[in-house]
């Protein structure tokens, strides 16, 4: 329970930080913001890697592999496409 409350504290503080930071983003950049933040949600890849620890049951390995693939597509796809989009927003002379 004590552990839970400290996690909850971190969660809520991060939510407020997120709102403060993102509040200032102009509508012009809303799409890159979405794809960029989307890439960050692929952080689950950390979790996916960790669940393979200390186990060699095949089901866990298969599901873990799938989770790593899905999360990595999320991460790489998100960052790459955001980069592509932002290149278009560069100031033209």
């Amino acid at each position, binding site marked *: 329970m004590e552990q839970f409350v400290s996690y909850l504290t971190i969660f809520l503080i991060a*939510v407020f930080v997120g709102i403060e930071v993102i509040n200032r983003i102009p509508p012009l950049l809303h799409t890159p*913001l979405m794809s960029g933040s989307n890439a*960050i949600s692929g952080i*689950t890849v950390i979790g996916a890697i960790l669940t393979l620890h200390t186990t060699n049951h095949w089901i866990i390995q298969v599901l873990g592999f799938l989770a790593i693939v899905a999360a990595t597509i999320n991460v*790489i796809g998100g960052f790459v496409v955001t980069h592509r989009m932002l290149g278009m927003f560069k100031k033209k002379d």
Partner: protein
Amino acid sequence: MEKAYINLIYLVSSILFIIGLKLLSHPKTAVRGNFTGALGMFLAVVGVFFEYGTITQNDIIIIGAGLLVGTAIGTFIALKVEMTGMPQLVALLNGLGGLASFLVGGNSLMEILQPGHDTKQLADLQFTISTAATGIIGAVTLTGSLIAFGKLQGLISEKAVRYFGDQIVKVLFLIGALYLGYLNVIEPTKIEWYWYIVLVASILGVLLVIPIGGADMPVVIALLNSYSGLAASATGFVLGNNVLIISGSLVGASGILLTQIMCKAMNRSLPNVLFGGLGAATSSADTGDIYTGKTKATSAEEVAMLLDMAQRVVIVPGYGMAVAQAQHAVRELYNQLTDKGIEVEFAIHPVAGRMPGHMNVLLAEADIPYDKMKEMDEINPTFNTVDVVIINGANDVVNPLAKTDPGSPIAGMPILDVDKAKTIIVIKRSLSPGFAGVPNPLFIQENCLMYFQDGKKATQEIVTALKDT
């Protein structure tokens, strides 16, 4: 490595995520922001290998192959996607995030159930409740996103699919998922419960998104973005990992904020978008009567003449422009007009397109300078100094009924005040109503000319006609 040091690595990567998002707030620093975020992710992955400790050859193969395959697919689709397909891609990526999350939840549970593992954690409510939450949020995110993807890609009807008693069915599935979550908590040794949660929540995700129509997609995409973050955060609670909790909640917050902005731009509440009937029940009132004999059709030559005499022109892009892939033609028109010394700006309604900021991306793709793209609040007070406004494939966002008819489905929605411009040119294929299903009295206004044509063709024809003048 000591756990404290590993957590320190995670802390640094969390901070990099926050700084990265902050830098995304200006076009000049945004590229750096994206790199900062990617660096944070890289650092987190480095951290996880330290946390992993001794790694067997078998693990290296699985993890390495997973990372490689994911990187290859991710890079491929990100480089290949067209800018008009951006909403679909974001929907798909959201869904994959949800998929990864519920798989991690299931794996964590199964791992503990393996013989020889410490089952003490199963008595821990934090673990079991957050596992159930991961299953529900992750699965809803996956299937909801897939439905959104299907709608945006035109694989399934973009229309709001409604049926008798749909609200009750949704509530029943939600209660079902929550009840299974409860069973998972009191009987965590039965792994079946977890997969039943995933199954029921998957159906719930479909039911939640299928009744939402195309014009509400900016809200849905933003909301699913938030869910994918919450799902990642929930896996952080399962694994007791701060970097997952922090980054997940950042994404969750960003999604919720955008959801709110989109709802405000449509003057609707979130429950109204999710459960309301806009676009579904509204009968397509006999629009023929309203327009008959009162609209004035125009031609490329006439438009070119009007433009030639104009000093200030504003272009309003809408979903019709995106569908017609007309952004490059619009850029040509922009070039030609500015060459003639005419001031050209773009008026962008927050919910134009299929995701927040969609129009800006399309125009940026066509090399239109971002300082020419004006937000609604900025450009609205200036419409009375506009000589010609060209509406390319937008409808509801310029419908004056939003202000004048309190009974209209779009009543109260902030709109672009194009009716104040000297001349209005509407490029539209027919007089069919927009998503909201209401006729647009703008079309019969004295100074409004209808150019019945596909958004791209029309623009090209105007460009050609301008060359001849």
